[in-house]
C-alpha cells in the first residue's frame, strides 16, 4: 500500500473518541498502553466510569488525576479485580487480531527483541469484554486483522470488537463483521486491507 499523502480514516484521537462512546455508564474499565490511554479523555460528560489504573500514574506510567470516589489498591488486589472477573471492559492495543478473536499484542517473536508482556495476558484472560484499538494496517501497510496471528499470542479467542482508523469491526462466530465505516471509507477499501473474510454491514431485508 502506498502513502498517497491524503489522510483517510480516523486519527488516533478520533479512534479513542469513537471507542469511548461505547463504554457504558457505570463500567469499571482498564485502559491499556498507547491509543487506549487516550480513551479516558473522551468519556462523554455525565458518564461515570471508575478507572482501574495504578505516586499517581496509569498503566502507561503517565501521570493522571483522581476523581472524587477514587480508591487506591495494591497490585495483587488490582489483578484480583481483573482475574476475578470484576472488570467489565478493557481497551488494549494490538499487533495482530485474528478473525477468531485471537490477539497478539506483546511480542513480534523477533529473536533480538526484549520480551515484555506487562498485564496484557491477565487482562484478556480475566476481563469480560475486550475492545481493541489499533491502526488497520502497520506502517509498512501490512494488515493487522488477519485469518491467523503469526505473532506470539496474548490470548486465544478474546477480542470482542476492534476500533481502527478505517472501521469498527466485531469478532463474531462467523468471523469479522463490519459494524461501521469511518467517513470517506467504503467496504472495498477496508476489505482490501483486511487479511481475512470481512462480512459486510447487514442491510435491512
Amino acid at each position, binding site marked *: 500500500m502506498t502513502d498517497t499523502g491524503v489522510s483517510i480514516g480516523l486519527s488516533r484521537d478520533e479512534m479513542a473518541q469513537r471507542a469511548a462512546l461505547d463504554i457504558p455508564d457505570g463500567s469499571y474499565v482498564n485502559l491499556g498502553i498507547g491509543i487506549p490511554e487516550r480513551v479516558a479523555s473522551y468519556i462523554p460528560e455525565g458518564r461515570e466510569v471508575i478507572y482501574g*489504573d*495504578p*505516586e*499517581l*500514574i496509569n498503566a502507561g*506510567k503517565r501521570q493522571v488525576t*483522581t476523581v472524587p470516589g477514587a480508591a*487506591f*489498591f*495494591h*497490585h*495483587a488486589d*488490582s*489483578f*484480583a479485580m*481483573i*482475574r476475578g472477573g470484576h472488570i467489565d471492559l478493557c481497551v488494549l492495543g494490538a499487533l495482530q487480531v485474528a478473525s477468531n478473536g485471537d490477539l497478539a499484542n506483546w*511480542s513480534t517473536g523477533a529473536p*533480538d527483541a*526484549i*520480551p*515484555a*508482556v*506487562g*498485564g*496484557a*495476558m*491477565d*487482562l484478556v*484472560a*480475566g476481563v469480560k469484554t475486550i475492545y481493541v484499538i489499533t491502526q488497520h494496517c502497520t506502517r509498512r501497510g501490512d494488515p493487522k486483522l488477519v485469518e491467523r496471528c503469526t505473532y*506470539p*499470542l*496474548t*490470548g*486465544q479467542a478474546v477480542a470482542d470488537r476492534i476500533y481502527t482508523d478505517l472501521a469498527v469491526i466485531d469478532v463474531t462466530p462467523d468471523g469479522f463483521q463490519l459494524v461501521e465505516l469511518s467517513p470517506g471509507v467504503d467496504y472495498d477499501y477496508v476489505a482490501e486491507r483486511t487479511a481475512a473474510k470481512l462480512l459486510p454491514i447487514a442491510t435491512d431485508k
Partner: protein
Amino acid sequence: MIDKSIATPEAAVTDIFDGATVLIGGFGEAGSPIELIHALIDQGASGLTVVNNNTGSGEVGLAALIKAGRVAKMICSYPRTANSTVFPELYSSGRIELELVPQGTLAERIRAGGAGVPAFYTATSVGTPLEEGKERRTFDGRHYVLEHGLTGDFALIKCQAADTHGNLVYNKTARNFSPVMAMAAETTIAQASQVLAPGQLDPESVVTPGIFVDRVVAVTHPAYESELVAQGMSYP
C-alpha cells in the same frame, strides 16, 4: 519495646548477601525505594536475583544496580520502559537472565508466597508461549496453568509513613507491589518519608501491618527517578 527503626539506609542493608533474592517495590518510578537501592549498590552484594515489575530507567536506582553488574537474574513483567537501556544491553549480550512473568501472575505469585500458598492455578498465559513448561489443568471446562508462589530473602520498599512497629501507609499508586512484597520476604526493609511513634498511625488506615516489616528507615525527602534521570545523574 519494639523499635524497628534503623538510622540510615546503609545500616539497613548491611546483611544482604551475595546470591540473595531481593524483592524491590515500585511500578516504574512510583514506589521505587531509590535510597535503599543506592545503599545496596554501595554495600556491594552481587549475583542477586531481583524481582520488580520493570528494570529501571536511566542509570539510577534499579537500573544503576543492574548496570553495576550486581544482578544475575531479573524476574519481571515489563523489562522495556522509556529511558530503559541498561537492561536491554546486558540482556542482548547474554549477561543477565530474564524470567518474564505476566504482571498479575507476578503479583499473585508474590502474594501467594507471602501467604504460605505454594502454588495456584490461573487462566493467564493459557495458549501462549508463556504457558510452556507449566502444568495445565481444567476446572469447570476452562484451562488453567499452575504457577508457583514467589518469596524473597529481602524486600526493599518505599512508603509514605511508618511507625516504629513497622506499620506502613503508602502514597497513592506508589503502593503497587510493596504490600505483597513485604509479606513475601524473610526480611523486609522499608524506607519512609516519616517514621512515627506507635499510635500516630490510625490502626484502621494501616495498609501493611508491622508483622510483615523488619526494619524502617527515614528518608525524609526521597528522590524521584525521573528527576535524577532528567539531571543526567548516573549512580554511583
